[in-house]
């Protein structure tokens, strides 16, 4: 629970994190803050600890610091209170790579429509907000078959606003080429960075894995957030339907029930292949269902990552 600064009444932020509710909120910045505040209030702990990857130095404890960051081993040796400080607090570069291809425009049976892209940019905006809040640098690349716009990582206070505007404005090309984009990102980033890929990963897995490998070779850390609609995971149709490709001009009339099992098998195999490759390359890969509220899916992912890092 968090306190509303204007009315003083307690607002249940989590109530607003349901995609159906978020879809009603037009402004991405408000939506992102709502998400961040929502899951912070839900977790009662700092989410950005999950980004902490390396210890930097100690500094003396001052009033107001959280006592749980006191290094008790140092206190035992020196009888003084020191606080542990980590590297990310100083210079972590987060590069958000968001897929804006036509396949990301798919929206399931939600009302109002909640596209995968809406979900993706909400995630991206939320993460950028958190990163910038703790003075890390955050950058953005929006792509489809190529990078449409890239914003270099920065911790400038206006950076978040620039990113929000870019995410809100981007209209994608029908095609996707994530592998090539990752190759390009790998070349573009001069410093070691945390690259967060937000995409449905409906792409050629070989090219995609090649791109991931390239990034890892450049010693970038990578997180894959695969955003999928619940329909794509379940294929819950039961009437004869003409499916029209969103990225290619093809169509298919089928009885969905008859093809469901085979379809699920195909998509599962695809997802498993990518996940296996990511696992081998020490890349975190998580599937995010757009029907699941972000205050559940994001903290879950962050918590599991923190556990792995520790």
């Amino acid at each position: 629970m968090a306190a509303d600064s204007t009315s003083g009444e307690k607002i249940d932020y989590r109530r607003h994190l349901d995609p159906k509710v978020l879809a009603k909120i037009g402004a991405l910045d408000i939506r992102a803050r709502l998400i961040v505040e929502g899951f912070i209030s839900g977790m009662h702990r700092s989410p950005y600890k999950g980004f902490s990857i390396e210890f930097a130095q100690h500094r003396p404890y001052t009033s107001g610091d959280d006592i749980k960051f006191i290094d008790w081993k140092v206190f035992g040796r020196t009888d003084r209170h020191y606080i542990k400080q980590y590297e990310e607090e100083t210079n972590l570069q987060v590069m958000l790579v968001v897929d804006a291809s036509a396949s990301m425009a798919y929206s399931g049976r939600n009302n109002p429509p909640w596209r995968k892209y809406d979900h993706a940019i909400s995630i991206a905006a939320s993460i950028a907000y958190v990163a910038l809040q703790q003075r890390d640098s955050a950058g953005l690349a929006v792509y489809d078959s190529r990078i449409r716009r890239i914003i270099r990582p920065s911790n400038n206070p206006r950076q978040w606003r620039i990113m929000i505007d870019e995410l809100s404005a981007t209209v994608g090309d029908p095609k996707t080429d994530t592998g090539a984009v990752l190759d390009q990102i790998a070349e573009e980033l001069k410093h070691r960075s945390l690259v967060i890929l937000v995409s449905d990963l409906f792409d050629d897995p070989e090219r995609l894995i090649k791109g991931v490998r390239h990034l890892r070779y450049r010693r970038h850390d990578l997180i894959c957030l695969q955003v999928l609609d619940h329909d794509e995971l379940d294929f819950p149709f039961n009437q004869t339907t003409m499916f029209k490709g969103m990225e290619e001009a093809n169509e298919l009339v089928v009885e969905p029930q008859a093809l469901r099992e085979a379809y699920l098998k195909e998509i599962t195999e695809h997802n498993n292949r990518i996940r296996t490759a990511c696992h081998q390359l020490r890349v975190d890969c998580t599937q995010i269902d757009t029907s699941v509220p972000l205050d559940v899916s994001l903290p879950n992912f962050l918590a599991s990552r923190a556990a792995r890092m520790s």
Partner: protein
Amino acid sequence: MLLPMIAMLPFVSPGLFAAGAACVSIPIIIHLLNRRRFRQKPWAAMQFLIAAYRRNVRRLKLQRLLLLLLRCLAILLIAAGIAQFIPINRGLAALMGGESRLTIVVWNNAYPMGYVPASGQSPFAESRRLLANWSQHLPGGEWTAVIGASSSSGPLLEKPVPASPSVTSLIARQKVTEGSPEIAAALMKAADLAKAWRKRVAHVRVWLVSDETASDFGCRSGNNPLAKLSGALHAVRRAVKAIGAAGARFRVFDVGRPDAANMAVTELRFTRPAVLIGHDIHLRLKVLNSGAQAEPNVSVRFLIDGVSSGRQTIGTIRPWSAMTAQVLLPDPIVLPGLHEITALIAADGLPIDNIRQRVFRARTALKVLLVDGRPGDPAQGVLASTAWLEAALAPADKGNRFAPRRIEIDELPGADLRHYTAVVLSDIAPPGTADMQRLERFVRRGGTLMIYPGEEADASAWTHLGGGLLPAAYGAQIHTSAKAPQTLDVTRSAGSIMAPFIAAQRQGIHTGIFHIAIHQYVQLIPRAHAEVLLKMRGGAPLLVVGDFGRGRVAMWGTSCDTRWTDLPAQPAFLPLIYRVLDQVLVARGARHNLLVGRRLVLAAGRQTKMELRGPGGSTMELTEMLAGAGKSRHLQLSGAPMATAGVYRTTAGVPMAAVNVDAAAGSNIAHIAARAAAECFSIPPSRIVTEPEELHSSHRSSTGPAGNIGWLMLMLGFLILASEALAARAFSRYRLSTQTAGVQA
């Protein structure tokens, strides 16, 4: 067209099955509609869907087809179950735990079955009630065919159908026809059907349901068909034998009345070739008494054009016998043209044969063309060869029946033969080809050609030219001695010609018939089917007659005048010529008189269509059609077979046809007892069922037929329907809660 085909289906309710079978189209239509009606959905994960489709397209198509087939089959089976399918195949029937059976009912529906006794109902009504009752209670697995045994039988169930209410309904709707019984033909049909179905069903039985009358066995008078075995009785026996050979069991259900009695006019005909205005009408009448009691003073009433023209009592007719009477109606016709005559006796239990009618054409005289090859010379007192004949045909007294015209051979090409009833060629050489063809045409259309030989006639040329026209070939020319001339053999000549001469001789009247001297003659060698009317001593033919087309050709062996014979000088000449002409001339109007079941055929004139009004306001349409082949091709007016007896008139009221029941073939309704009937059929007496009520219970008495397997098919249909549902579920595997495409750990 479609309904009879549906009725042939092997179901108790073929209509229900037809409706159900039509419902098979519903899943097909839904399937086709579904292929056209679908919603559209933009889809991001298209690559996976297409990959899945490509890998499964064959399976999907097969599944769809299988499901469609299952749906159709289920509907078909349910329809078959509801309609109560009956196995047509013997093996299938046995597999289903029963045996099928075919009952072929030969139902005598001829007019004698309509005899209504003083008390009770007619045999036909009784048989109809019994058969309807029987068919109503038939179990499943029974096939039924009903064959009518009448010359005018409408279409019954000549192809077997399963027992069903429609069979009962059809039987209950039947009415007695006006045709005569044709038992042998109907039994032969049944034998053929039994043979054809022997391998399809386990049992075949043939039932004859009839009144068992003498007429059924071709016995036209008397009450014992076995006294004189007729061709009809032999035919019946052959048919029964054929039924046995086909492996069918034959039984006879006798619905007749032992006390049946009937009076019928079985024949009414003119004894002269034509009815002439101003002359008496000579009729021959035959009345049958088919009863155990003698009928005293049988009186016949005559009507001409509906007006009473006299009554004649023909005397007492003995039991089981017929009486023939010669009737003379004095000078009743005043106008030429078509008229009708009706002979009527008192009505009885079978009134349809108490009346007999004829349509005839009245003429002023019979025109005879005498073609003389040797015209003679009146100036020198030499008579023409046909002079005697001309004098005989046109005597000086009043009321000549004939109107002769004498021409020479040179005039023959210019003569219009259509105006003549007969053409006499006397002592002429064979005419040219064109004239010969005209003569042939004349005879073919119903004319009479009479040929006399003579000095001028070349016998061998005639024989060569005559071809099929002449009834005999000319042989050698014989000259007899003056002292021992050839004579007419009165006793060996046709009785119909000689009878009055013999009678006159017995009464002591000299006619000279026994003293005719024939000095010269040509040998006649009759062809097959020719009839020798007059013979000379030693059996040599003197007058040979043969049919050609609708006409007749007569060939004399001696001359027409007194050169070769003294016949013209004898007192017998004139009556002999008249008797011969009455025999030889073709009675016109045969096509206007026919029996029930026959087709009316009239010569086509200017009309291409003719509408006739029959008895009871019925109408009959005659239309023009081409008949014959080759040279005999001609147009004629023809209609459907006549089903109802009576006079048929044009819209102007002119009688055009008289249709009678074949009383000679059917009116002897003397009931044949079971033992005699069994002998007639050549079957054991036990096969004759005299208690027809047994028919009602007979379906329970034989080996058990297969019950229909409708219930089984119904269950099978529902089973397939359930299987279809399971298969559809199995194929779709739509389990939303248990399977998603999440990443597998």
